């Protein structure tokens, strides 16, 4: 059992942030692990950012406006800002950064969100103008992930990165540790921690051991199984997002049998014992998704009315499966990743239930690369496989429901109605009209079942109680910009 903490914490003590994956490199455009979303905001500023409630807030931009059609956006910047090397951080730097992100060679995960941008210009040192290919009402939210870098220093980014955020790097061992110290040239409120060490922990148990012993201050992704053992520990506080921000998504190939038949997909949705999965695999952390949709019940954009409820019902599942030609004796495959114990637990629950209606579920666990090879990128065929996965679900549907757009989702779902509803919603500035469009799209999602979404859950971070001010964003990212001892 965890005992009392050595609490002689001076502000000189480094704050150690542990996570199961290391940081392989520092270029924020090339984001590999979600863990890096905790690091990059400490080092680089964006034009905009999300706050705890999921609203878009000013970051380096002070204000922004669009034309009525939402095809041109103008951002005003803070004047007189500097990079950590003292050079000017101005509109030109912003333009250069965006041009780098938009280059087809740049393998960045932000590409989809930025796809509507046609050009970026800097009429003066504190103004940046975006020309769009199509109307986009949510551009300020779409560009939060773009970190303003000094492009001239890109080549040395792993050795001596020039930063624009509250901290800068003092030491970096790839895949192991990054040491941050305050950036004196930061334009915003000064950093409050004298040192932050990002470090790799072997596995969740080693991480929680180190948290107990006080060797790490912050554990970014606490294993679900550890949540209950820490919740009674006064020296540790658990940090959760305001809303459930992670959807458990099981992907099916809707372009090949048997899951090209919507009945088979619905059958699977009915065969899913959501409660058991929530309680056993996710240790009760989260909520079941009765309507099998991305947006959780607590999302203001979610409207239950008129949606099908997929209650656990094996009889119904059996008859729907039979209609889709999946009869007793059929075999399906659960394609899981070995790094995620909850995926395997869910698979085992599914296996036990499907067995009751005569369907064999073969469970295969894979290392991450093998796992993703099977279905990624979109367009691959994987008949009969159920692939466990999850998605971050920021509260704005534009950045969660976009996953189901044609050609995007590895489930190969192509629904032109859904796409047009979505695109219209993105281009609509009026909130009411937008909401109606979201609901229409969600209805399609609910009846067509492109994905099985049994549960919405939330990533939980654990921090030593002496550290205050850490919070988790709607998309699941832990933020330490305002953390202090």
């Amino acid at each position, binding site marked *: 059992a965890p005992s009392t903490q050595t609490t002689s914490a001076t502000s000189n003590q480094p704050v150690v942030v542990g996570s199961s994956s290391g940081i392989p*490199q520092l270029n924020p455009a090339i984001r590999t692990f979600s863990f890096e979303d905790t690091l990059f905001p400490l080092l680089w500023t964006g034009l905009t950012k999300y706050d705890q409630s999921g609203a878009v807030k000013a970051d380096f931009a002070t204000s922004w406006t669009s034309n009525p059609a939402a095809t041109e956006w103008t951002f005003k910047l803070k004047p007189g800002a500097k990079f950590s090397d003292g050079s000017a951080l101005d509109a030109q730097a912003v333009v250069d950064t965006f041009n780098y992100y938009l280059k*087809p060679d740049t393998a960045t995960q932000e590409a989809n969100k930025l796809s509507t941008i046609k050009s970026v210009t800097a009429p003066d040192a504190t103004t940046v103008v975006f020309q769009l290919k199509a109307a986009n009402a949510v551009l300020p939210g779409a560009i939060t992930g773009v970190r303003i870098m000094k492009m001239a220093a890109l080549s040395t980014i792993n050795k001596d990165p020039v930063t624009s955020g509250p901290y800068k790097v003092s030491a970096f061992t790839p895949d*192991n*540790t990054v040491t941050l110290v305050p950036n004196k040239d930061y334009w915003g409120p000064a950093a409050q921690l004298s040192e932050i060490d990002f470090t790799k922990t072997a596995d969740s148990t080693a991480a929680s051991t180190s948290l107990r*012993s006080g060797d790490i201050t912050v554990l970014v992704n606490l294993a679900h199984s550890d949540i209950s053992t820490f919740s009674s520990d006064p020296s540790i506080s658990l940090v959760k997002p305001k809303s459930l921000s992670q959807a458990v998504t099981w992907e099916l190939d809707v372009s090949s049998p048997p899951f090209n038949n919507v009945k088979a997909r619905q059958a699977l949705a009915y065969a899913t014992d959501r409660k058991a999965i929530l309680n056993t695999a996710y240790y009760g952390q989260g909520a079941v998704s009765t309507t099998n949709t991305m947006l959780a019940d607590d999302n203001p954009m979610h409207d239950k009315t008129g949606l099908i409820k997929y209650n656990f019902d094996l009889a119904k599942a059996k008859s729907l499966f039979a209609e889709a030609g999946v009869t007793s004796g059929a075999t399906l495959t659960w394609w899981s990743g070995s790094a995620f114990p909850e995926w395997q637990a869910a698979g085992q629950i599914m296996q036990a239930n499907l067995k009751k209606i005569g369907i064999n579920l073969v469970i295969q666990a894979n290392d991450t690369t093998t796992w993703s*090879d099977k279905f990624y990128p979109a367009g691959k065929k994987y008949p009969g496989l159920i692939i466990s996965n999850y998605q971050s679900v920021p509260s704005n549907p534009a950045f969660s429901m976009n996953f189901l757009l044609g050609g995007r989702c590895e489930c190969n779902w192509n629904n032109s109605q859904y796409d047009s509803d979505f695109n219209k919603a993105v281009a609509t500035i009026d909130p009411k009209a937008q909401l109606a469009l979201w609901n229409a799209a969600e209805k399609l999602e609910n009846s067509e079942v492109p994905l099985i979404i049994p549960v919405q859950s939330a990533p939980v971070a654990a921090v030593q109680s002496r550290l205050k001010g850490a919070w988790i964003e709607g998309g699941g990212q832990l933020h330490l910009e305002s953390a202090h001892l």
Partner: protein
Amino acid sequence: MLKSVLTRLGWSIAIVIVSTILVFAILRVLPGDPVLARLGAATKIDPATLQHLRAAAGLDGPLYQQYLTWLFNAVRGNLGDSYFSQQPVTELLATRIPVTIELTVIAVLLSVIIAVPLALWAAARPGSLADRIVGTSTSIGIAIPAFIYGIVLILVFALTWRLFPTRGFIPFATDPLGNLWFMVLPSVTLALVAAPQLARFLRASMIDLWSVAFVRTAEGKGASRTRVVVGHILRNALVPFITRLGVTVGYTLGGVVVVEYMFGIPGLGSLAIDSAFKRDYAVLQGVVLTIVVLFTLTTFLVDLLHNAVDPRLRKDQAHG
């Protein structure tokens, strides 16, 4: 003398080359696509870019050609770039090599410090209670995998008694004492794995020596048991023991893989696991090369040392 050293060096180089060929071949048999893996599971990328990235990572062309390119570059100190981070592999290795060497050296020293007294205690009286205690306990000690030692040490010394940190690392140059403090549990873990093997080996060779005639000669002279055991038996057992130490170094270099992983030490071992998980061939290949070179170098040095300890070999070379 010089000639035999050079021949041995030649063989060592050949061994390094053959083992890199083996690893290279194995790694390329089933290409999961590291380029794709790097991009993560949520980006769309067009085939031309993919091809371009592959070429940049040296993943096109026939296998032997890939190997020769790699070898040619390796000889010139260029081991390519990590597929993931695009960092030069040599740079990744550079910071980690000293860490692993330090850990290995400390661990091997510790294991010798544990093993030699145990073996002496046991072999002083073959068949005695002490002998049987050492014999059985080292047999059990060998049966315990490194990670179990690690878990127990962490639970006891780090979590319950809070004597040492559960994990972490400070470079020696930054803070020598802090560095050693972090090294204690990992090196003890490694030593606990290696020590029973060394102790058993030494005990067995010493007990064998009891039945050799010159030991009876020494006893017959009236030499005390201590003198017989230390001056004659141990002295002779040292010759094979030194060779065995070379093997232990190799074994420990393998053990660092798990131990560095458990204790979050940024050495070659944790790099090996990371790159194995990510299929970062360039890095994995570099790690293997480094460890093979380290091991082969140790073997080479052990050979030289062996010659120095064994007068038969020493004199042979003086003549030759």
